[in-house]
């Protein structure tokens, strides 16, 4: 069999695989559908180039196979052709880059009304903190973290007192409300990623990083850690539950705030002291 036929079949197979693949995106569940659109555009332009180049190659292989006594063309340079190809490529590249940069501009500029969520990562788990009635998160420090202060909130920061603490790896979010994910880590790199939301960013110890999205489908999603963080990396999962506003409000009301926790701790200590007195 002529090798060109096999190369042709490889190209054909690639196209068919792309059309009929059962392995493709999960349905997008956030505002980042534009990323999917840019990928589709890149498939059209890039895929077109791939097919064109490979088919041209196959054509050459058939048409110009070695024949004894035939001479190849002798033409060291073709300035005009090279110029045309350079410009055509440049135009294609600009057509891909432009929408990519527009979306990136959206990605780094967070809408004003976004609710901030503190996502705290460690080896190997997640916990979350939401702002209280004041709408602001209290500042934190790694050295403050202990059993009584699981998020390391600075105790003298008034904004921290009413923060809602979710000591679970499942976070509830309100549908159609933009959220700004503020990522931090107490030990190594992590990355909080829900494939259906498309967006991601590393959590880096020492700094706070961010990204935002707006969930737009009610449902339950799995969170993956996608920045290698040691031997438990693959098991570092979490969850997100996107709820309608009423369900979300009901859920939020049941959550504990930092002042609740402090009060509980104090009660515990008072009880302990009482108990100690009784025994004495």
């Amino acid at each position: 069999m002529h090798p060109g036929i096999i190369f042709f079949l490889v190209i054909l197979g690639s196209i068919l695989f792309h059309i009929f693949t059962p392995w493709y995106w999960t349905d997008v569940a956030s505002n980042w559908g534009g990323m999917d659109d840019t990928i589709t555009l890149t498939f059209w332009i890039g895929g077109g180039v791939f097919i064109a180049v490979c088919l041209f190659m196959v054509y050459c292989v058939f048409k110009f196979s070695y024949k004894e006594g035939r001479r190849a063309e002798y033409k060291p340079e073709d300035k005009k052709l090279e110029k045309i190809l350079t410009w055509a490529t440049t135009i294609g590249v600009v057509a891909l880059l432009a929408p990519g940069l527009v979306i990136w501009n959206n990605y780094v500029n967070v809408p004003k009304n976004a609710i901030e969520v503190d996502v705290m990562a460690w080896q190997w788990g997640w916990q979350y903190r939401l702002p209280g009635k004041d709408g602001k998160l209290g500042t934190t420090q790694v050295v403050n973290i202990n059993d009584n202060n699981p998020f390391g909130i600075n105790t003298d920061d008034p904004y921290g007192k009413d923060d809602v603490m979710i000591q679970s790896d499942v976070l509830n979010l309100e549908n159609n409300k933009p959220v700004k994910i503020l990522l931090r880590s107490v030990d190594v790199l992590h990355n909080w990623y829900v494939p259906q939301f498309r967006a991601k960013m590393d959590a880096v110890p020492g700094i706070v990083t961010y990204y935002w999205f707006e969930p737009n489908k009610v449902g339950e999603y799995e969170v993956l850690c996608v920045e290698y963080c040691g031997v438990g990396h693959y098991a570092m999962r979490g969850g997100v539950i996107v709820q309608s506003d009423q369900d979300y409000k009901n859920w939020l009301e049941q959550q504990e705030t930092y002042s609740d926790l402090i009060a509980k701790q104090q009660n515990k200590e008072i009880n302990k002291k009482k108990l100690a007195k009784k025994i004495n």
Partner: protein
Amino acid sequence: MSEEYNDNKTVHAQSSETISGGTSGVAPDIDYVRPAEIPEQDLYHGHSFITKWVFCQDAKVIGVQYFLLATFTGIIGLILSWLMRLQLGFPGAAGFMTAEHYYQFVTMHGMIMVVYFLTALFLGGFGNYLIPLMVGARDMVFPYLNMVSFWMFFIAVLVLLSSFFVPGGPTGAGWTLYPPQTILEGTPGSGAGILLMCLSLILFVAGFTMGGLNYLITVLQARTRGMTLMRMPLTVWGIFTATVLAMLAFPALLVGALMMSLDKVLGTSFFMPTILKAGEVLEYGGGSPILFQHLFWFFGHPEVYIVALPAFGIISDLISVHSRKNIFGYRMMVWAIVGIGGLSFFVWAHHMYVSGMNPWFGFFFATTTLIIAVPTAMKVYNWILTLWRGNIRMNTVMLWCLGFIVTFVNGGITGIFLGNVSVDVPLSDTYFVIAHFHMVMGIAPLMVIMGAVYHWFPLVAGKFLDEKLGKWHFWLTFLGAYSIYFPMHYLGFIGVPRRYFEMYDSPYMTSAVGMNEFISLAAFLVGAAQFILIYNIIRALKVGKPAGHNPWQACSLEWLTPKVPPEHGNWGDRLPVVHRWAYDYSVPGAKEDFITQTTAPSEVVDTGVEKT
């Protein structure tokens, strides 16, 4: 003393030129080549087995040594990849496979393949063998240093492999070695393993610098008479530019490895912020993990081109020779190589779009990354335009070339996905990335290496490799590797993350199970197919068909040595004199379909040679 020697040489050379020019009787001037300006170098000729084959100063032997040792580490990398694929396709099938082992195998596979296999093989192997021959030198300019370079590499490999036998085993931090996890408990091999890795890299860089200086200065200073820079084969251009990149990029890796070792051993905090581990605050503070990523990728991205540029150069020469046609747009090809090399220092942070660096960098690095696509695309066009109206020999070498074009274009296009910052967001850290970089800097360069082996083996050994075995080797490798990595992109679309020991039962990942099994089976097959080459080489050394002089009817100098395989000193009594570029194939009016670089213009006066 030396001046006198110089004069004698040049007079001798010139007089013979005049005689050969004189026979044509018309214009003796057209054969004039500027006389040499410096005397020839003195070479140390080994006498014993040890000085000839072990501590040898002949660049050709050093090239083969590099090739063999790199191949040996490559086979270890291959076996590690089998073990990984066994776990991914058939979880639990290998009883000993814990998550610790899996991550150690992933890490060692990556580091071995990128640095100790591909880099060493292209620059140390092909660079050493081909540069002096292709530019018409007797050897590298610093043969002793060249020998030391190989043995430093040898020690670096020993140190690397010794980490398999220390307590805790080799590092399992991923080949990117991102701190803080790299040196903290919770990552396998965070004790002796990572220190040995850093030490091995430092040794590698030191050894490589010795070799690299040799390649650069040999190309700049030791070219033979008439071999202008714009007459050099693209192989030399590729290796030369890659070496410049390596000289500038490797220091970043070196300081990164050094600073990380200090963080580990002395408790400095270059890369270590305040860290809470198991309820206790560690004695680190103020360092930046992202700083390491910048250092790593400032090395890491040029590293991609350190592998790719020699591959670009070699493939250009192979396609040209076996299409019996000059490489299309030689000047453009040279400037593309240089341009890509220069640009490759301004794109590193496209590996870090979601690393937490200032997100505004994204605009800059996406733009530079997509700009680099333009010269790269030009190279692809010129390869296929070289095939166009050629006279294509469909031999094994050409098959590898065609396989390269398909895999490289495929991997290049997926690079445009990942380089375009917002498209990278959903795809980064998924199997899409794995598929992309294996296609573009694993399989595509491998196609080049294999093509180069089938092409230059007749020069190195004086015998042909078997064509039939070669074709089996090619089709199994190409079809197998393509069916590993092409579908793998689509697993990335689902969201399957990289560096996962197990997938568990995430709803969208269960659909990947069957595909993972298929990919693993293909990986076993492709790996096994590589042993066909080893058999082919051993067989050819014993009973291979003798190749004789210039078996492919090539124009470039390496085929024009008086002896095949070339001896130490390469050129016998007299250095060759170059009169033209390396691509005068199928010149109209010429007797044969190639004019060698040493053919004097007066011998081909009636032909339509355009460029000399």
